[in-house]
């Protein structure tokens, strides 16, 4: 819409612009109309809400949105004609849908930052809970950070190669029955609830084999959740590699495994890394399997293969359960750290994807 407008202005600004036939011109609302209308409907919406004594801000917002859509449509229909009015109606609805999607996200971030930053400081990041009673302020999440990093790291070490090789098999070698079966099981695994993955490892690792709780046990359950995500995303990335490149390499007399290693993987490595990072971000917030298999701890345990550990999501859960003012604050602060961790992973993934992307076309 605005493209059309700038184009039109560009035409008018050009010296020869006056030669455009008059019949192509059309009455237009000024550029600032949507913004002005939005402001006005927001104001009127609040006014109506106040006057009618509605307490819910959501109702105010809905009234304002409705006013905006109807107002734009009517005004535009009067000035610009039916086609433009429909265009503006659609644009308005898209904007409102966008706002509806963004509001919860923004408010979640805002809430977490506002509440979490209260106790988040160097001390909080570098100390464990130790023997501190839960009702007292103080303590920290160092033990939980260590635990999350180790559990997620171990899970990635297990799941990334497994998922990568499975995807390579499916895309490059898989034909017939076995490939179909593998695809089927990957699909099934995608739907496994995290608590079930936790119970599965619990029943084998702890109940049958008799090991105690450990970060590694949790990592195995997290790996089960991670593998299908890695397989799926890697598969998509490998399928994006044009067949011509594989053929070009094979036609040079390069064996198939080397073609995959030297041509297919480098071409898709950006997307594959992004997929793995997103899978990591996805499991970093898992609580249920950690609760079943790692149990949580108040003190620092750097050995993921021995004894209980803490993790960030479990820490949030446990602190919230304590129900004291101080533990609420700690829960929010830990949640903020978890969000930051996931966001950093996302940013790194995007960075890698951009950095590794093959230069398409002419550079």
């Amino acid at each position, binding site marked *: 819409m605005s493209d059309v407008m700038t184009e039109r202005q560009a035409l008018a600004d050009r010296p020869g612009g006056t030669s455009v036939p008059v019949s192509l011109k059309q009455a237009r609302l000024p550029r600032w109309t949507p913004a002005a209308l939005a402001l006005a409907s927001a104001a009127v919406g609040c006014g109506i809400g106040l006057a009618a004594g509605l307490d819910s801000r959501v109702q105010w917002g809905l009234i304002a949105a409705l006013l905006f859509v109807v107002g734009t449509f009517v005004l535009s229909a009067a000035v610009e004609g039916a086609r433009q009015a429909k265009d503006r109606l659609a644009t308005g609805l898209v904007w409102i849908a966008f706002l509806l999607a963004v509001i919860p996200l923004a408010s979640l971030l805002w809430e977490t930052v506002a509440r979490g930053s209260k106790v988040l400081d160097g001390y909080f990041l570098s100390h464990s809970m130790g023997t501190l009673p839960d009702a007292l302020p103080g303590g920290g999440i160092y033990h939980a950070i260590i635990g999350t990093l180790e559990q997620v790291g171990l899970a990635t070490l297990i799941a990334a190669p497994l998922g990568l090789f499975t995807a390579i098999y499916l895309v490059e070698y898989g034909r017939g029955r076995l490939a179909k079966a593998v695809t089927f099981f990957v699909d099934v695994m995608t739907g496994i609830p995290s608590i079930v993955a936790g119970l599965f490892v619990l029943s084998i690792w702890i109940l049958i084999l008799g090991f105690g709780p450990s970060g590694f046990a949790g990592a195995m359950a997290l790996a089960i959740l991670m593998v299908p995500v890695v397989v799926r995303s890697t598969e998509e990335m490998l399928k994006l590699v044009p067949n*011509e490149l594989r*053929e*070009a390499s094979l*036609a*040079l*007399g390069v064996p198939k495994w080397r073609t995959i290693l030297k041509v297919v993987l480098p071409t898709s490595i950006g997307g594959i890394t992004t997929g793995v990072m997103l899978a990591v971000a996805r499991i970093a917030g898992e609580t249920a399997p950690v609760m079943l298999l790692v149990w949580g701890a108040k003190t620092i345990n750097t050995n993921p293969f021995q004894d209980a550990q803490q993790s960030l999501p479990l820490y949030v859960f446990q602190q919230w359960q304590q129900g004291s003012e101080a533990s609420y604050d700690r829960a929010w602060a830990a949640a903020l750290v978890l969000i930051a961790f996931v966001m950093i992973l996302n940013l790194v993934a995007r960075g890698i994807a951009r950095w590794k992307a*093959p230069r398409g076309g002419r*550079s």
Partner: protein
Amino acid sequence: MAKRIDVSGLSAFYGNHKAIDDISMSVEPRSVTAFIGPSGCGKSTFLRTLNRMHEVTPGGRVEGKVLLDDEDLYGPGVDPVAVRRTVGMVFQRPNPFPTMSIFDNVAAGLRLNGTTKKSDLTDIVEKSLKGANLWNEVKDRLNKPGSGLSGGQQQRLCIARAIAVAPQVLLMDEPCSALDPISTLAVEDLIGELKERFTIVIVTHNMQQAARVSDRTAFFNLSAVGQPGTLVEIDDTERIFSNPSVQATEDYISGRFG
């Protein structure tokens, strides 16, 4: 080092679909043989049976014999990887490796043959790029990505990549169909030079190109859509274009069908 190709009774399949039927022909060493014929008559398929690339396609299957000098490409114990090192290929659309520099593209095939010494590589890369008439255009930017070149340059890069592994035979599947006339001319000149050293087989839709570059021409046809393609005749290019022995060839060349 160029080799002679003798094909006898060759049929190729995609699953149950027979794409070419019972083809027999000989290709002389150090010559250019052009394949012409309507789309879908199996020229690409036949070309790909000559370096065992056909079987890379899922369901691809071949019957018959292809002798390279005296060795059957489809004989027992023959390694397709070794075949492809001996019989190189250039594709219709230029397809340099997007993650590699110009230098690495040309060196790609060599690196796996065990040539990893930088000085050897540099030598061969330079020779191959010169052989592909590309050296002067890229010598200052060997470390830039190959995808940054123009279409014609990319195709010559692919030719350089193919000749770098020193094959005996070079197969080209419509190498100029994605190129402008000037780049086409550059590639055609190059083919004229390369035939001193290689046996060249080229598929083309361009009659003038076949007439310009080839010594011998093979005409393929298919009786109906869905039927397998067959070899109609192969003869000296001059004869095919002036006085072919089969009426269908004359019709095709003079544009009466196809």
